[in-house]
C-alpha cells in the first residue's frame, strides 16, 4: 500500500479517535456521575493525537531507514567483477534500482506475472530489450548478478512496504484502542494534550536548529576533504585565485574576501545613510497616512528578486557608470565594476535598514521625546541627541543584518561586478566575491573529488562563519538595547 493511502487511513483513524474519545468521556461521566476534569473535546484530542502522531512518526522513520538497510544488503550481492573499469559501485547500484523499477513497470504493463518474473533469467532473456519497451533504457546488457540483485531489491522493497503498512496501521489501531480505554473523568486530558502540543512545538524548533547543524556538518566534512588535498595556509593567505582544470591551481581566498568586503562596504555606504534618513523621516516627521503608504512602498524594494537587480546593474547602471564616469576619468573601460554591484546592492538593502530602524526609532518611548521637548529642545535636536543615541544599538543591529545580507549576495555581483578575482582599490574594475566563485566552482566540469570543486565548501564554510559572527554580534547588540528600557 502506498504511503499516501497509509497516511489517509491513519488520519481517518485519528478523526474517528477524536469522536470516540469525546463520546466515551461524556458517556463515562454520565454513567459514574463524575464531573469531567477537562472539556470533552480535550479527551477527543488526546485520543486523536495518540492515534496519529506515533504512527506517522514510525512511518517517517521507516521510510528513512528501509532504503539504507536494503541497499546495504543488496550492495553486498554485487561482485567486483561486474563493476566496470574506472567506474564506481554507486553507478551499478543506480542500474540495479532502475532495473527494479523497470520490472515493476513490466508487471503493471501486464507482460508477465510474479512467477514469470521469478523464472526470468538475465542470461536467457533479452532483459535490455524488454525493459526498453516499457520505457526503461539501459546502457548495456545486464550482467546476471546485477539482474539478480535487482530482483532481490524489488522483493525486499515490496515486503518492506508490506511490513510497514502492517506496523503503522497496527500501531495506530493499538494506540487508538489503548487511549480510548484510558478515557476516564479523572484523566487530565487537557494537560495531556497540552503537553503533546508542547513537545510538537519543541520538535519544530529542533528541526530548525538541527538543520543549521546539518548544514555546518556537511560543509565541514567536505572542507576537511579539501584541506587534505590543499594546504590550509595557502588557502587562507595566498593572494592569487587561479583555478586550473588540470590541477596545480592557486586557490587563495584573499582576493575573493577582498572583493566581498569591498562590494559589501560600498553597498552599506549607499544603504545606511539613505536607509537611516528614510527611517528618521518616516518615524518622526511623516504624517500617519503618508507613512502608511510610504513604508510598504519602500519595502517593495526588498521583494524584488535579486536577479532583477542584477539585470538593472548589467544593462543600466554598469554602462552608465562606464560611459559617464569611468571612461572620461580614465579609470577603466569595464562595464562590470565593484561600484556597479555596490550601488545596486545598496539600493536593495535600503528597506532592510530603513524598515528595521524605523521600527526601532518608533520603539523609543514617547517619554524620551517629551523629556527633551520639555527642556526646550527642537525636533531635530531631540532626534540627534536623544532618539538616535537611544536607538543606536538597535540601528547597529539592523546595519549588521544588512551587512550579512550583502556578504551573502550572489546574483547582483555576478551581473554587476563580473567574475575576475582581483585584489585592487579601483572601484571601476571588475572584481568578484566568495559567493560567485562558489557557484562557478561547483557548476564547472571538473571532477567532484578535486580541490578545484571542494574549495567551494571551504569558501562556503568561511562565509558561513563570517556571517554567523556578524549575526551573533547583531543579536548581542539588539539584546543589550532591549534591556535598556525594562
Amino acid at each position, binding site marked *: 500500500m502506498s504511503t499516501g493511502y497509509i497516511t489517509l487511513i491513519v488520519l481517518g483513524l485519528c478523526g474517528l479517535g477524536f469522536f470516540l474519545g469525546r463520546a466515551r468521556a461524556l458517556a463515562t461521566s454520565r454513567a459514574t456521575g463524575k464531573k469531567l476534569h477537562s472539556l470533552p473535546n480535550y479527551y477527543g484530542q488526546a485520543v486523536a493525537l495518540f492515534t496519529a502522531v506515533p504512527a506517522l512518526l514510525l512511518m517517517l522513520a521507516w521510510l528513512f531507514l528501509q532504503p539504507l538497510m536494503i541497499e546495504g544488503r543488496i550492495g553486498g550481492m554485487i561482485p567486483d567483477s561486474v563493476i566496470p573499469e574506472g567506474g564506481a559501485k554507486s553507478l551499478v547500484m543506480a542500474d540495479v534500482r532502475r532495473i527494479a523499477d523497470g520490472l515493476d513497470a513490466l508487471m503493471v504493463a501486464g507482460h508477465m506475472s510474479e512467477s514469470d518474473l521469478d523464472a526470468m533469467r538475465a542470461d536467457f532473456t533479452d532483459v535490455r530489450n524488454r525493459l526498453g519497451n516499457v520505457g526503461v533504457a539501459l546502457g548495456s546488457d545486464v550482467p546476471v548478478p546485477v539482474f539478480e540483485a535487482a530482483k532481490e531489491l524489488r522483493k525486499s522493497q515490496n515486503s518492506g512496504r508490506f511490513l510497514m503498512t502492517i506496523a503503522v496501521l497496527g500501531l495506530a489501531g493499538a494506540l487508538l484502542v489503548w487511549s480510548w480505554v484510558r478515557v476516564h473523568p479523572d484523566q487530565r486530558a487537557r494537560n495531556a494534550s497540552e503537553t503533546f502540543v508542547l513537545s510538537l512545538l519543541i520538535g519544530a524548533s529542533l528541526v530548525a536548529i538541527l538543520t543549521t547543524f546539518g548544514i555546518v556538518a556537511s560543509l565541514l566534512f567536505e572542507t576537511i576533504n579539501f584541506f587534505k588535498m590543499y594546504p590550509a595556509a595557502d588557502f587562507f593567505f595566498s593572494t592569487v585565485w587561479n583555478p586550473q582544470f588540470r590541477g596545480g591551481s592557486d586557490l587563495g581566498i584573499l582576493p575573493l574576501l577582498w572583493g566581498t568586503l569591498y562590494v559589501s562596504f560600498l553597498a552599506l555606504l549607499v544603504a545606511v545613510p539613505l536607509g537611516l534618513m528614510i527611517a528618521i523621516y518616516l518615524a518622526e516627521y511623516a504624517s500617519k497616512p503618508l507613512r502608511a503608504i510610504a513604508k510598504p512602498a519602500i519595502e517593495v524594494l526588498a521583494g524584488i528578486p535579486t536577479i532583477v537587480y542584477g539585470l538593472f546593474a548589467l544593462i543600466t547602471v554598469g554602462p552608465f557608470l562606464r560611459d559617464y564616469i569611468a571612461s572620461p576619468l580614465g579609470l577603466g573601460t569595464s562595464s562590470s565594476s565593484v561600484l556597479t554591484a555596490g550601488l545596486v546592492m545598496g539600493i536593495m538593502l535600503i528597506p532592510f535598514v530603513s524598515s528595521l530602524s524605523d521600527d526601532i526609532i518608533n520603539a523609543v518611548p514617547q*517619554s524620551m521625546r517629551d523629556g527633551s521637548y*520639555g*527642556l*526646550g529642545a527642537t525636533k531635530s535636536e531631540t532626534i540627534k*541627541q*536623544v532618539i538616535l543615541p*537611544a536607538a543606536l544599538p538597535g540601528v547597529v543591529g539592523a546595519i549588521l543584518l544588512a551587512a550579512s545580507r550583502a556578504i551573502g549576495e550572489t546574483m547582483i555581483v555576478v551581473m554587476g561586478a563580473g567574475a575576475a578575482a582581483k585584489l585592487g582599490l579601483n572601484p571601476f574594475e571588475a572584481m568578484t566575491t566568495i559567493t560567485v566563485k562558489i557557484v562557478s566552482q561547483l557548476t564547472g566540469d571538473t571532477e567532484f573529488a578535486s580541490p578545484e570543486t571542494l574549495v567551494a565548501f571551504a569558501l562556503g564554510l568561511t562565509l558561513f562563519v563570517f556571517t554567523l559572527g556578524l549575526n551573533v554580534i547583531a543579536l548581542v547588540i539588539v539584546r543589550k538595547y532591549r534591556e535598556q528600557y525594562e
Partner: protein
Amino acid sequence: MFDAPKFAETKVTNNDIKIAARKVQVYYGDTHAIKDVDVDILDKTVTAFIGPSGCGKSTFLRCINRMNDTIDICRVMGDILIDGEDIYDKKVDPVQLRAKVGMVFQKPNPFPKSIYDNVAYGPRIHGLARTKADLDEIVEKSLRRAALWNEAKDRLDQPGTGLSGGQQQRLCIARAVATSPEVLLMDEPCSALDPIATAQVEELIDELRQEFSVVIVTHSMQQAARVSQKTAFFHLGHLVEFGDTGQIFTNPKDERTESYITGRIG
C-alpha cells in the same frame, strides 16, 4: 479615610502673578477637555492641581508650556499669560518657552546618557555655558538643588538609567532646573515612587519654591496638602475651586470639592 492634613508651614508671602489663564478651552478632536478655566498662579509658590482622573488637570498643566502642541489633534483657545505675555501669541517660539517653563513628568524619563550629560542637556542646547568649567558648575548646582549631588557626584559618567526610581526622578528635576526656568511644572512627579523617595521629592519641591513658581499635578490629596500653598480643584474639565490650600481642605466652598476631599467622588 482621610488623615488630618499637615499643611505646608510657610504662608504665601508673595502676591506677584506669574501665570494668568483666562477662558482657556482645550479640545482633543471633538472632546472638550478643558472648559473656561480662569486661574492666577503666583510666583514663588507651590500650586497644586487636584481632581479625579480625566478631569483635565494634566491637560491644563501641559498648556502652560505648550507641550500640547506636540499632539496633532489638540486645540487650545483662550489666553495664558506668563509675566503678562501671551504664550500662544504667534511671535512666541514654543521651544524658547519650554526653556523658561520646565517640566517634570509622571514617570522618571532620564535619557540613556550619563548622569552628567542628562543634566547638561538643556544648558548645552541653549548655550548657557561658555566653558567646560561653567557647564560643570551648572551641573553641580542643579544636582545640589535636586538633592542628588551627594549620591551622584562619584558616578557622573554612569548612565542615568542605572539610578533608582527616586534618584531618577530627582535627576529629571535637576535636568529641568539646569536650564534656569522660571516656572516648574510637575505632572504627578511621585506617582511612580515609593514612600521614602516621595518624601525626598516633596521636601525638594518645598525648597524649589524659593526660586521658582511650581505647579504640581497630584492624585494624592495628602501630598497636595503637604507641599502646596494654593490648590485648584478640577472636575470634568471645569476649575471648580481655587484658593489657599488650608481653606480648600478645611472649608471648601463648593460641594463638589467637599465631596472629592472627603472621598465621595473621585
